[in-house]
């Protein structure tokens, strides 16, 4: 049996420290007005950026649960990720609105 520190501490560190870096990045691009949520295309990018973070959290969560034999949680995460991925691809492939 794998203990908590072997299973989840790296995950918490990854999304704690990495999440901090991600949040600082989001703060800077919003504060500097490099990303302007009022522009339709930028709003899509805002959603994609948040999606990407959750998507990777999901992938690592999914495989950790699968590895320790928690298939119910893994299946749940897998389904959520699948739905999110379909949404992402349709967002990326849809007709661009406006410029930039």
């Amino acid at each position, binding site marked *: 049996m794998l203990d908590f520190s*072997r299973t989840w501490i*790296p995950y918490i560190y990854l999304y704690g420290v*990495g999440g901090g870096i991600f949040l600082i*990045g*989001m703060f800077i691009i919003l504060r500097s007005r*490099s990303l302007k949520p009022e522009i339709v295309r930028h709003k899509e990018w805002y959603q994609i950026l948040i999606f990407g973070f959750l*998507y990777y959290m999901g*992938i690592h969560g999914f495989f*950790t649960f699968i590895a320790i034999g928690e298939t119910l949680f893994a299946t749940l995460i897998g389904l959520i990720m699948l739905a999110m991925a379909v949404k992402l691809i349709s967002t990326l492939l849809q007709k661009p609105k406006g*410029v930039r």
Partner: protein
Amino acid sequence: MDGVIQTSASFWIIIFGYFALVLGFGSFFARYNKTTQDFFFSGRRFSWWLITMSIVATGVGSHSFLKYSAKAYEHGFSSTMTYMNDWFFMPLFLFGWLPIIYYTKVRSIPDYFERRFNPGVRVLATIAILGYMIGYIAIGFLTMGKTLEPVLGIDLYTIIFIVAIISGIYITFGGQTAVIFTDLLQGFILIFAGILVFILGVNYVGGFSVFWNVLSPEFKLPLAHFNQPANFNFVGIFWQDGVAGSVGFLFMNQGLIMRFMACKSVHEGRKAAAFNVLILLPICTIVVSNAGWVGKAISIVTPEAWNAATQLDHVFTQVAYLITGSEIVFAFVIAAVAAALMSTVDTLINAVAAVVINDIYRPIVKDKDDKHYLKVAMIVSAGATAVGALSTIFFNNFPTLYEAHGFFHSTMTPPLVVAIFLGIFWKRYSTPAAVATFLGGAILMWIGSKYPQIFISPFDHGIEFNPDRPYSYIRALYNTLVCAGSGVIVGLLTTSPTEKKIEGLTVWSLDKAREFFKGSAPNDRPGEKVTVKWTLKDETEDNVRFSISDMETMGADVGDMVYLADERKWLGGLKSIHSFYGEPHRDDGVVYITQSHAESGLFDKKRKMIAEKEL
């Protein structure tokens, strides 16, 4: 050496046939190189899907099947960590660095440093970036040598010498367009080859349930143990690869930057990067690692079939040989991997030439025609190949390619990464602060490497001290902190640069960068694409003329920037141009272009064009 794999003539016919096919494919597109701008940046014309697939071969090739298969065999699914931690920096890349380099039209990363700081900082950045890229080329050559070593059974350096000659010839004459198209083809083939190995491997061990059940739960965890062993632990790899490596690859890999600059717009560049990280990297991590997982399963299920003396860097080749069951399939897999590694190296050689020409040669030898610079670029490409091949001697001292690459990232990337980051995001970051980052950082890094138990151990997160290779990975954290500390302290103590000097060069003034790019205020009025026929006009001005109605549909005004491409979307922008809107006419559905536009875009008279406003 752990035994030579026996091959027949047909194996080599397939290997050489594959190389000839791939090189011929790329060389066909080399005819699109008319200027140094085309040679290095492909004229900023490609669609996101073409760039994102070509990035696969560059990324996968460089991080390689060998390196990850070795760690996958030793440590399991946690070998995927390095491909799965790039998203943290995506906001800063997509909405910081990418638009800055694209809109400011920098020819190279050191070029950015001169504009942001001064020529002295450009020199420091040039030295750092050349060191980084030459190191990367060397690791690429070493990987190729190790891929072919078990097959050829000849001296590693002889193989490297032969491969270097082939790479040098190819990139010298091909340029960036050839590399992009070669990589595009290889991106698809690599993914196919990797998945083929996985399917055949799982089948070899008796099906997926057998494969899954023989592997231990710890082997299947996606993240490594937090701080042990010293040669593969989560926290060290997070800082070495997740931070220094990811930022280095995204922000300061000139080869990758040139790919993004070959996109037709910043938006396309963002799509290429996002699609790559979200969709392709998770696939690629399985593609490059699975041979190690399969190798481990084989060693448990059929230990008699597994050569226990296999060196870690030879795991991939051994597994491919065992599971393919056919010399033809084995030859295809080896050819695909070796050719992809060559793509990586070629991209970097092209990037070294770009840096040397634009950052060293052009400032010294001015006012020559473009053909002269193109010729010198080819000579530099050949020279970079030779230096890269020689540098393999140093990296071959490490136990595995993974550790060589880890040490390289931890040591080479922090000063440049910190200087780029602070340069883009901190307005106060001054020229003395940038110099302090490079020089002060380098001195403190050197002190840290001399006395790791004093300076690096406070950051070691409990990782065991290995006197032979102290803190291979976690040193990246110390190195990053001392470089950042040097820059921040000097930045706070010196006068900040004026707003005027850094206009358009930081994330805080991107609107100005867009304005500089266009040459006038951007037009953000929404518009649609239009499909038009084209005809030649007698005038020679660099503009194209649409009807009043078509311009209204596109939301465009005279003087705005326009992108025109062949209507066949699958060409990915290969036949396309950028220009400006001229005075409108009254023929709806027709665009008037110059002879020069038609030649530059290689437009087909029978084909329509799709036009869209850029800015």
